[in-house]
């Protein structure tokens, strides 16, 4: 009989537990409990002016604050039918690039890698593998740097505004951004050998993969919803995709669509849209042995690395476009009309939805934020169920590590989802 009880899983963002009970090879219980304090953001957003949704919703999550800001912006633009310029689109791509670097690099090197090295945190590597730590910090700080140039700072950026970005980078700053993007790509090439050295557990379970899609593009900030089971769905109909519900042992809402669970995030995007990655990102995926479709959830970490190469390439294109534009501070006119708007964007962990209903003064009457991690919880539990029978003869310590590594592979963002993590073998 094996009971596993991991209270407050470490090296994830936020608080969650894993509880597993196996008796004579039979799984009596396997749960991923999200126990983060309830946040009540949807209630707090009520009564606030539309432009404050960006300030408030950003605070849902420090690591995907840019994503929340951009989702709120998209929802407001959807509600008030605001069109955005090519300049604004390029600036948002650069800001978003900062977030993907900060988030993916933190997960790959600081949260996931220690499991493969048999250590409890990245800090011991500062003594034993200093070059790896320097490499990881360089990449992570690149995210903060580019976020700083475009957003004033990466975490809770200060320039995103419904009227358009409130500050523009100078030509000199953009040239420096371009130079550093090429340097970041060189740094990523060094990362390939580190990633190749990681022995990911063998595991496969096919599931429904959901992401945004815009044909021809590895889209992150626009497009409709795409399900690997049923195809394209309008972003407006996101509620029919997420079908949120609650369970009494968790403060994260859960989601299911065509099956009992679905997966969002880097691996879902890679499976749905991998054909549109940049050439260099495709080459890195081949070098790392990542092929679409990939049914091994542990390899979400590898898909994140591939995405970094793509995001760098996309940002090089955006920075070059901006350098060819005559940048001007924009002041879009916003005409408030009562009604609702939906914003759907890809954040590092998957598809994020914001929906607001505004009155005729632009005051929020109702708000709904659907977080990627909440959408992944069922899929993690289904992965547990598929994984456990094959590993149930292993020691409790080995089982616990494999389960923890699986949860970490999803890079859960729990403070976001508590609207989620410990492993508990009860």
């Amino acid at each position, binding site marked *: 009989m094996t009971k596993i009880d991991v209270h407050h899983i*470490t090296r994830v963002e936020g608080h969650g537990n894993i509880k597993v009970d196996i008796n004579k090879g039979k799984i009596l219980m396997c749960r991923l409990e999200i126990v983060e304090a309830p*946040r009540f953001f949807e209630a707090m957003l009520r009564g606030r002016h539309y432009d404050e949704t960006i300030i408030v919703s950003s605070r849902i999550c*420090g690591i995907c604050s840019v994503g929340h800001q951009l989702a709120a912006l998209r929802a407001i633009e959807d509600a008030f039918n605001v069109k955005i310029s090519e300049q604004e689109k390029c600036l948002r791509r650069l800001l978003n690039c900062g977030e993907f670097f900060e988030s993916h690099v933190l997960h790959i090197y600081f949260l996931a890698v220690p499991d493969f090295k048999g250590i409890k945190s990245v*800090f011991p590597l500062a003594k034993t593998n200093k070059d790896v730590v320097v490499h990881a910090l360089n990449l992570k700080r690149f995210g903060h740097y580019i976020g700083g140039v475009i*957003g004033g700072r990466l975490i809770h950026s200060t320039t995103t505004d419904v009227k358009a970005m409130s500050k523009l980078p100078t030509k000199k700053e953009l040239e420096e951004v371009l130079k550093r993007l090429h340097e970041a790509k060189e740094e990523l090439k060094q990362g390939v050998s580190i990633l190749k050295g990681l022995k990911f557990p063998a595991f496969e379970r096919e599931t429904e993969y959901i992401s945004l899609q815009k044909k021809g593009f590895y889209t992150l900030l626009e497009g409709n919803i795409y399900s690997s089971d049923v195809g394209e769905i309008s972003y407006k109909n996101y509620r029919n995709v997420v079908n949120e519900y609650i369970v009494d042992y968790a403060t994260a809402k859960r989601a299911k669509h065509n099956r009992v669970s679905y997966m969002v995030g880097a691996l879902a995007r890679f499976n749905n849209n991998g054909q549109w990655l940049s050439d260099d990102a495709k080459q890195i995926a081949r070098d790392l042995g990542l092929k679409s479709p990939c049914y091994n959830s542990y390899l979400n970490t590898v898909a994140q690395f591939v995405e970094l190469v793509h995001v760098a390439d996309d940002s090089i294109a955006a920075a070059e476009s901006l350098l060819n534009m005559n940048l001007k501070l924009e002041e879009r006119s916003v005409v408030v009309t009562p009604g609702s708007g939906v914003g759907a964007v890809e954040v590092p962990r998957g598809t994020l939805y914001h929906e607001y209903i505004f009155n005729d003064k632009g005051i929020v009457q109702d708000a709904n934020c659907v977080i990627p991690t909440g959408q992944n919880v069922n899929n993690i539990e289904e992965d547990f169920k598929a994984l456990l029978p094959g590993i149930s003869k292993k020691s409790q310590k080995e089982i616990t590590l494999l389960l923890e590594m699986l949860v970490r592979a999803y890079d859960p963002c729990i*403070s976001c989802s508590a609207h989620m993590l410990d492993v508990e073998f009860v």
Partner: protein
Amino acid sequence: MSKKPKVAFFDFTGCEGCQLCAVDLTPEQLFDLLALVDIVEFREVMTDKAESYDIAFIEGSISRKPDEEKIKDIRARSKLLVTLGACSTIAGVNALRNFYPDDKLLHLVYPGHPEIDRTTIARGVSEVVKVDAMIPGCPIDTHEFLRVVKDLLLGKKPEIPTYPVCVECKMNENTCVYEKGIHCLGPVIRAGCNAICPSNGGYCFGCRGAIPKANIESMKEILQKYNLSAADALDKFKLFLERDKEIFPDDKN
């Protein structure tokens, strides 16, 4: 040589952005820091745990009954306890929900969920246990964090500015936000952020908390001069300053 101080990071109700800012270090800064202190507990990036701490950094607000016990336990095991960011220092954006003292709206988010019964209003850490130093801001400024750490390691009491954001804003030679006809809380909010929001085309919404003895009446006079409504300014204070009893004297709870 004496043993290195044991430093720990804890998080309560918050977004963990301040912890990310605290580790937004250059390789040299990180190696220097690791040479000076032992980071013994930091759940977000490490599995290790420890019994006692020389410095405990606390992120997040206290908003659940079990968290009250947890922070008291951490306090009892820490020599110095330091708040990290707006949520732990002044309850920050979490305190917006304190304007909804009844459970009706909360039940809208999690209909019938048992967790709601364990939820309290959101409070800053100093409302529950003694705090030795605070690092305000949403998020914290990494430079300010390093300065406070340095002071604490030298045995000095860390100083944070008691003058308003306007001072830094003027030093940056910005056009006053009021001149653009936009609300700004800069005149009464604690500096130390280098007026980052107004300097980037935005306005101050008060994330660092009010300066000591903030003169709200005088601020109202300036607002009047610029034809801006005092009621709208008060509404902006709601975003981060619900726990400030000078501004919101009625405890609705």
